[in-house]
């Protein structure tokens, strides 16, 4: 056992993947010499050399397209987009090229690329440096989307993403970079598409992912004080997502709350809720309540940003509402 930081877990996953597979390359703005905006790629340039780890010009669209071209030409590129807000510049490469190549070329190629990108607020970074846009990618057939919630899942899912023969969007919640966990020396493998029960409980199911897991755990503690035992499902993968685990939990608790940091309306939670309102309908004893950010850009001011971010109180209130 040793303490593992989220940011280091990312670096270690990259290091191990690059050691295991010489076709893995890593590029993005300031990932090499500077070691990444959040320090996750420090030391990799020194270890693997400039041919496999390199800095790029500020040309996101070309870089993402290049990742597709490299992926269909025998490499496994890992591209970092500095903030998820900047994925607005790479949608064509991801959606029209990466996601569709295998299908539209008759199943005769694979596009094994990983796009790592940080999302989330709380840093006062304002409306163009804080967005959680994962719902867009989850809507695109051909893409996979994962979002780890702690250092161990970050390591395991990044290894799985790099091993995956499909394009994977790997979303890193900024508030987690500094988080730590006691981890075994041999880190466990994770599978894309599998959720886990982060906390068992009999009274209500809370489905969440990424940085919001901590909020959910805190809310569960608060609820336990009121005699309500919440079961928390940590999705880990958003596309595909683990319908079976969510349904099984709902079948035990009969109440469902879905929570995430992203804007509630048309967010990932909408799909979870909609699906359970269909296949889980007979299990439901109360309304499905969602907790997400309000329908507004992320404000700069700290008090505004705090009011914006989905909170323990929001979640507790949501649980109370579905139990009422």
């Amino acid at each position: 056992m040793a303490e593992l930081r989220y940011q280091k877990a990312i670096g270690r996953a990259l290091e191990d993947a690059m050691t295991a597979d010489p076709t893995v390359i890593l590029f993005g703005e300031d990932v090499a010499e500077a070691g990444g905006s959040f320090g996750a790629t420090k030391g990799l340039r020194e270890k693997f050399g400039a041919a496999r780890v390199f800095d790029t010009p500020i040309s996101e669209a070309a870089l993402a397209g290049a990742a597709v071209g490299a992926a269909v030409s025998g490499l496994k590129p890992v591209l970092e987009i500095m903030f998820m807000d900047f994925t607005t510049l790479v949608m064509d490469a991801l959606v029209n090229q990466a996601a569709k190549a295998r299908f539209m070329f008759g199943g005769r190629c694979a596009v094994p690329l990983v796009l790592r990108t940080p999302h989330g607020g709380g840093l006062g970074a304002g409306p163009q440096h804080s967005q959680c846009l994962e719902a867009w990618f989850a809507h695109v057939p051909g893409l996979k989307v994962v979002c780890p919630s702690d250092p161990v899942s970050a390591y395991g899912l990044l290894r799985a993403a790099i091993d995956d023969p499909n394009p994977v969007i790997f979303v890193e919640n900024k508030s987690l970079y500094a988080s730590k966990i006691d981890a075994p020396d041999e880190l466990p493998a994770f599978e894309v598409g599998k959720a886990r029960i982060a906390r068992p409980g009999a009274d209500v199911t809370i489905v969440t992912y990424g940085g919001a897991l901590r909020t959910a755990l805190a809310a569960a503690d608060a609820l336990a004080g009121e005699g309500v035992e919440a079961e928390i499902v940590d999705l880990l993968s958003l596309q595909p997502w683990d319908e079976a685990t969510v349904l099984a939990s709902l079948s035990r608790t009969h109440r469902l709350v879905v929570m995430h940091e992203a804007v509630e309306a048309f967010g990932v939670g909408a799909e979870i809720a909609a699906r359970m309102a269909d296949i889980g309908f007979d299990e439901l004893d109360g309304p499905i309540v969602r907790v997400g950010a309000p329908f507004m850009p992320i404000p700069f001011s700290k008090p505004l940003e705090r009011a914006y971010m989905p909170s323990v109180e929001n979640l507790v209130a949501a649980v109370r509402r579905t139990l009422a």
Partner: protein
Amino acid sequence: MTRPKPKATTGVPTGRNNPSEISRDHLADLYGRLLTIRRAEERLQKLFADGEVPGFIHLSIGQEAVSVGVMDALRDADTIASTHRGHGHAIAKGMALEGFFAELLARDEGVCRGRGGSMHVADMKIGMLGANGIVGAGLSIALGSALAHKTRGTNDIAVAFFGDGAQAEGLLHECLNIAALWKLPLLFVCENNGWGEFLPTTKHLAFQLGDLAAAYRVPHTRVDGNDVVAVQAAAHRIVEAMREGAGPMALECVTTRVRGHFEGDAQKYRDPDELAALAALDPVRRVADQLAALGLGAAALEAIDAGVAQKVEAAVAHARTGTDPSFEAACADVYAEGGRA
């Protein structure tokens, strides 16, 4: 403050279209390949008119010499990224006519199993990374492929085909810059047919590719793109240099869009005289005339044509007997399986 003088437009280099530069056999071979694309597209035209081809198609009739000339200098391991007008590129790179027609007719036997169609013909095995429905997108895909060639230490090269209209997309700039900065083996091939959809590209562009390329010190060559001898000569010279590590280069081929933007476009917006003049610029007829001048008899030329026509017909027949693709198989191919690609 210095206002730069408008540079005189680089004229189309002449003197390259000297068929004596290459052997008669080579020229005859090029002719067969030109004719294959031409006859295939003419056949498509008819199939389309007859309702056998779904969707819409952009024919490269009049532009075949670009595909054949450039591909003459490439080998299988070299990669190309193509455009919405990609039939010629695909066939010239080696796509079998059977799989090509089967795709255009949306058959399971098609190169993309009927899922892509005209705008997405592709075959990774021969380095054809795909036609593309997104103008300009092929540029960055070729950039990545060039990066892969360089990273893997081969001396293969990547080629990005793009139209003159596509030059207004920001990706051109990003890719020129990155390719130049990283000295990637990426050949930029502009098919300058003077049009972007229904507007002459003089209304799209305030620059010439040669001037733009010069800014990044990317060597630029402009040739008569309807002269296959000129195109192949330039391509061979360029590709040879690139295999030796010269970095990115640009080849601009001035050519002619004969059949309109897509099939069904009557080109009413074009000057009738300009349209009438197209026949004289025909890149296929030109080679036929050259071969005749070199002593290849009418019978020999006709034999080539007949051979091509037969192959085309056989491919069409094969495609027609093909099966409809399976929906279940299509669903199963959205994702590749396995944790190790």
